[in-house]
């Protein structure tokens, strides 16, 4: 296939998955600027890999493929200590959309944001993959390069930790008390 045709095909893949890539990167880094760098680097790596594909080869699941590259890119970043000095900032999504005011005014979203900030990146990612993208454990294990049992226990611990962090907030206590009453 001609390179420019491949470019068009790649562009279609990227455009269709860019938002998900950004979300995963954000869940990884919890920093918008770093997330953007990560996505940019991922796209570049994916692009080069895509151009190397033989005509007979095809990406079966472009989204998983891009996620896998992003996860590996993030690992590379961490190895290079590029993320070592990064502080976990409070959520900086104020500049994104007008609708963000809904999050700011929502008690639960404040709690959720605070809890996610405190959660380990690997927990945030596994929660994002399972809860938002609803990947199976096998798919997640493939993307993260860990065993299915590791995914299971990681998800369990992640949800336990998130639940604990949410429980500390007033909203969650209130919610739990409602749950108890039920």
């Amino acid at each position: 296939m001609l390179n420019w045709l491949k470019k068009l095909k790649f562009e279609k893949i990227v455009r269709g998955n860019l938002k998900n890539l950004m979300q995963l990167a954000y869940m990884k880094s919890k920093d918008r600027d770093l997330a953007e760098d990560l996505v940019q680097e991922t796209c570049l790596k994916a692009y080069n890999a895509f151009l190397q594909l033989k005509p007979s080869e095809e990406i079966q699941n472009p989204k998983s493929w891009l996620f896998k590259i992003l996860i590996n890119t993030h690992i590379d970043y961490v190895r290079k200590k590029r993320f070592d000095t990064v502080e976990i900032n409070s959520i900086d999504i104020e500049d994104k959309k007008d609708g963000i005011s809904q999050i700011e005014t929502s008690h639960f979203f404040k709690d959720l944001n605070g809890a996610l900030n405190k959660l380990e990146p690997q927990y945030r990612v596994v929660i994002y993959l399972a809860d938002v993208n609803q990947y199976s454990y096998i798919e997640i294990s493939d993307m993260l390069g860990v065993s299915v049992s590791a995914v299971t226990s990681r998800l369990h611990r992640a949800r336990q930790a998130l639940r604990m962090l949410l429980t500390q907030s007033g909203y969650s206590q209130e919610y739990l008390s409602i749950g108890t009453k039920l």
Partner: protein
Amino acid sequence: MKCARVELYISAMLDNELSLKDSIEAIEHIERCSACKAKWELNEETRAKLQYYISFVDVSNNLQHKINKTLGLSKQQYYFKPLIIAACTILILGLGLFVNDVFIQIPHLYKIHNNIDFQLISNDIELLSNHAGANLQKQHLSNFELAMFTPHGAVNFKRPFNKNYGLIALKNDKGQRISLCFLPKDYKSTLQSNKHEINGITVHHGQDKNYHFAYWQQNDKTIALISDSLTPVEMINLAGPLIYERRYTNENYEGV
């Protein structure tokens, strides 16, 4: 089942990764235990809220621009799209002409006769006139009507017909079928045929194994008649109104 085990199961159950047997046991426990039920519901609630929360993380224009610039996508997009469209249009047009000229072989008369794909079934005089390239009037078809030929199929049933090939399938009350075909002007049958001059029009007619045929050129088309049971003379007699249009008289075709 104990609470500690149920807590282990809650996560897997949320992801539909728990076996049916364990799920049933866990659900039974959750329904009885308010603490586990609260955990389960909080997990569900968190999942729903998380999906909403993350939807606000979107791609900025800045990132989009950076990616396009890094990969040279934007240039390609605007530079190549019109080119691709133009190239595809030329290819399709070229292929269309090529296919029309080279690959569309003139079908055998009998194949046309038996091929429903070419059939145009209608008693719409205007439609027939347009297709025949003749200004047909209802009276021109009177011989067909007198011969008890009626359109085969539903009244006014129209179907799109091929640019070059059209077929009106008719049958009489005895079930005898005749195909009135409209073919390209330069159509020539490979079958051996006799010629008859009728009012300056050369009519080719002949017989093959199972059918009779007759064809002539009229305006910008070749009109052919094919039948399993009618002789060429019978067909030409029936086709008189079409051949002579308004110049038709009984004397003109009775001598054929």
